[in-house]
Structure formats: C-alpha cells, structure tokens
C-alpha cells in the first residue's frame, strides 16, 4: 500500500515538475499577482525552494538565463546594484576631475542628478543604441548564450541585440579604428566553470548606466560569468577607465542568473523611435508646462 502511494506520488511529482506539463499550464489571468510569462504568454515556473541543482557542466554556459530570484532584479533604474546613484558616501564613484565634469554634463532621468524629461539628454531616450556595458547595467533581462568552438555569442532581451565574444585566440585590437556601440570582445575559460570576457573600443556616446556615468575611449570592461551549478550563474563586472575613474570599480558582483526551461521564449523589448517620440512629446509637454508654472510663481527681479 505504502509502495503504491510512493509510486503515485512520484508519478504526480514528475507530471507537476515536467517542463512539458509546465509549458502547457494554463492559469486564469489574474491581476494583482506577479505571474511571470514568457514571450509566448506561457507561465514560467518558479523552481521549488528546496530544489537541489545538479552539478554544472564543464565549460558550458549555454542556455537561456534570467535574473533571479526576481526576473526584474536587473532593471537597475537608479544605477547598478553596487553603485546606485544616491547620497551614500560608499556609492560615490572614484571620478577623475574629467569624469565628474562629464557626469555632470549628462542629464539622466534617475538618480541624484535626475532632471525632468524635457531637459534630459539620455541618448537612449531617443533610441540610440543602448551600447555596452549599459546593456547589462540597465534592464538586464533574459539572455540566451550560444557557444561554438571560436566564440561565445549572447543575445539579449534588452533592446534585442547580440554580442560576439571571440575565443579563437585573437587578441583585443591594439588600435581602435572604428569605435563600436558594443565594442570588441575576446574571452577565455579561466577554469571549467568560469568564463571571462574583456571588451574595448566602445563608442563614447553611450552611457555606462541609467544615471549617466560616463566613459572614455579608454574604457575596458571585464565580465566574469561563473556557473555555480546546473541552474545558477553568477555575473561580475569590472570597469577600468583611467580617464574617467582613478581606479577600477565593480558595478555588479556575483549577480545571480537562473537557467530557464528550453521552451522559454524571450520577449521583445525594442526601443521604437516613433513610440519614444510620442512618449517624450506627451510627457515633455507636461514638463514644459511645469517650467512655465515655476517661472510664473517666481517673483520677477
């Protein structure tokens, strides 16, 4: 009898946790609850809290990954997790005088230097390419990693872009003839579970993050992708830019990503220029009205 019960429980358990069953799960659309759905509107399962992840495969970070425990944990609207733009002294970046001056020239929508939208000069607000590393420091959502013998390629939900990280033995370019929005990247395995990528040659028009931290043509970004086990990968980034910062700093340390089911469809997330224009116009009109109201309220000198 007890054996039969155990067998039934096992069968039920397999059915409940099977990716196929879960992919087909239909649940009444209920508002007020955060029920995560993929791009095909299928419910993405939360792993059971007591689930023991298996060992990580060797030299393999392929698959679809999302921030965890919350799939929105990589939004970082006010700056990356280690250095949000606030008034805490420990979050002050080691700016050079040029770095500080350039940061103050940037007018973001968030953080201690936020301005109203009409005064904002964020290049991404008009749908310029988000660029690297902002791609991973603002709205880090789902990514899909592919590996071949010669490269690791990552496709990003964020702005629907991809990067190629070469690992065919080439070195980073010594001289950058053409800066790129997403730079030039090379990578290597430093052990069986850790992939390290370096990127240079980044277009100076891009911001490092959503609060306008600047970079120069000397920016070098190091990414460390460490697979902890089968399900979890930890992501660390280091910024080096001697023109803008007196020492290297790490915007993210061991930021966790979780492997998603193979059927997970990455949602479209594209900056549409016409929609952005519409949005800015609608909201900017408000901001202009605000400015005029403030002017009226100020007594004339």
């Amino acid at each position, binding site marked *: 009898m007890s054996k039969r019960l155990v067998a039934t429980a096992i069968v039920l358990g397999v059915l409940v946790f099977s990716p196929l069953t879960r992919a087909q799960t239909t649940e009444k*659309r*209920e*508002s*007020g*609850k*955060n*029920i*995560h*759905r993929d791009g095909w*509107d299928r419910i993405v399962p939360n792993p059971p809290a007591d689930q023991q992840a298996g060992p990580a495969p060797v030299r393999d970070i392929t698959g679809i990954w999302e921030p965890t425990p919350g799939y*929105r*944990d990589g*939004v970082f*609207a*006010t700056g990356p997790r280690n250095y*949000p733009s606030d008034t805490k002294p420990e979050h002050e970046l080691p700016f050079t005088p040029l770095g500080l001056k350039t940061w103050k020239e940037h007018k*973001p*929508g*968030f953080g201690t230097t*936020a*301005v*109203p*939208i009409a005064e*904002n000069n*964020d290049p*991404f*607000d008009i749908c310029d390419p988000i660029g690297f590393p902002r791609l991973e420091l*603002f*709205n880090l959502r789902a990514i899909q990693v592919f590996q071949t013998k010669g490269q690791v390629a990552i496709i990003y939900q964020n702005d629907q872009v991809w990067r190629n990280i070469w690992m065919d033995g080439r070195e980073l370019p010594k001289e950058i003839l053409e800066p790129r929005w997403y730079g030039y990247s090379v990578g290597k395995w430093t052990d069986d579970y850790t992939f390290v990528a370096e990127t240079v040659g980044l277009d100076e028009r891009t911001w490092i993050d*959503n609060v306008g931290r600047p970079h120069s043509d000397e920016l070098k970004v190091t990414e460390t992708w460490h697979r902890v086990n089968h399900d979890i990968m930890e992501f660390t980034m280091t910024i080096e830019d001697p023109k803008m910062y007196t020492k290297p700093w790490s915007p993210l340390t061991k930021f966790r990503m979780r492997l998603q089911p193979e059927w997970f469809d990455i*949602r*479209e*997330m*594209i*900056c*549409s220029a016409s*929609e*952005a224009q*519409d*949005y*800015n116009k*609608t*909201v900017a009109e*408000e*901001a202009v*009205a*605000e400015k005029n*109201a403030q002017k009226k309220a100020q007594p004339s000198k």
Partner: protein
Amino acid sequence: MKSGLIKGFLAAAAFLSISVSLFAHHGNAAYDSRSVTVKGVVTAWEWKNPHTFLKFDAKDEQGNVTHWLGEWNAPSTLINFGITAKSFKAGEEVTVTMNGMSKTGQPVGRVTKVILPDGQELSMGSER
C-alpha cells in the same frame, strides 16, 4: 524579535527595490506623491513602449469634462500582472487610482489600479 526585524528589513528592501524600478528609463521627476481616484470613460488605451497610457474623460457635476492621462508601466511588465493590450476598451467606464500626480497640476498621474465595469480590479498588487 530578531526575525521580525529581519522580515521588516527585507520587506523594506523589497519595497525600495521595486519602487525604484518604476518607469525606467525615463525619469519620474515630473510626479509628486499625491494619490487620486477618478471615475471616467476610456477614450484610448495605448499599449506602447516605453510606457503605456490610459486616456479617459471624467465629468464633474456641472458637466465639465476633464481629459485625463494615466501613465502605467511598460507592456512587458504589465503582461505578467494579467494586464494586456485588450484590458480596456474605449467607451468603458472605469475607476482609476493614481499614486503620483503631475507637479504641473495637469490631469496626469501614474496609474496603480483600475476597476472595470464588471468590478474586476486590475493592478500590479504591491509592486511598482
């Protein structure tokens, strides 16, 4: 006591982390912290990036119409909370709660909850 404190801290941290994710990447400097609930008739539901807009008209006792503009989160966020491109139809009477009103005094706010004619409530719960 200790676990209560930890729970309180975690709850506060969770609230902070979700509240700052609101309305990325455009700023939220244009809104204050006032909360308003308005009954009106939907004129448009704009399911667009970077954020959605619910437009609705409200009539006062004298019959004067105010054109309201409610800004809500991005489609890719709302979809996880049961709110879709088909959630609102022009002509429907809705009750809209907005937390954060335009500093200009214009009828513009950040939507947090909408009640449909059949009483169904659409919201992101405690998240922002």
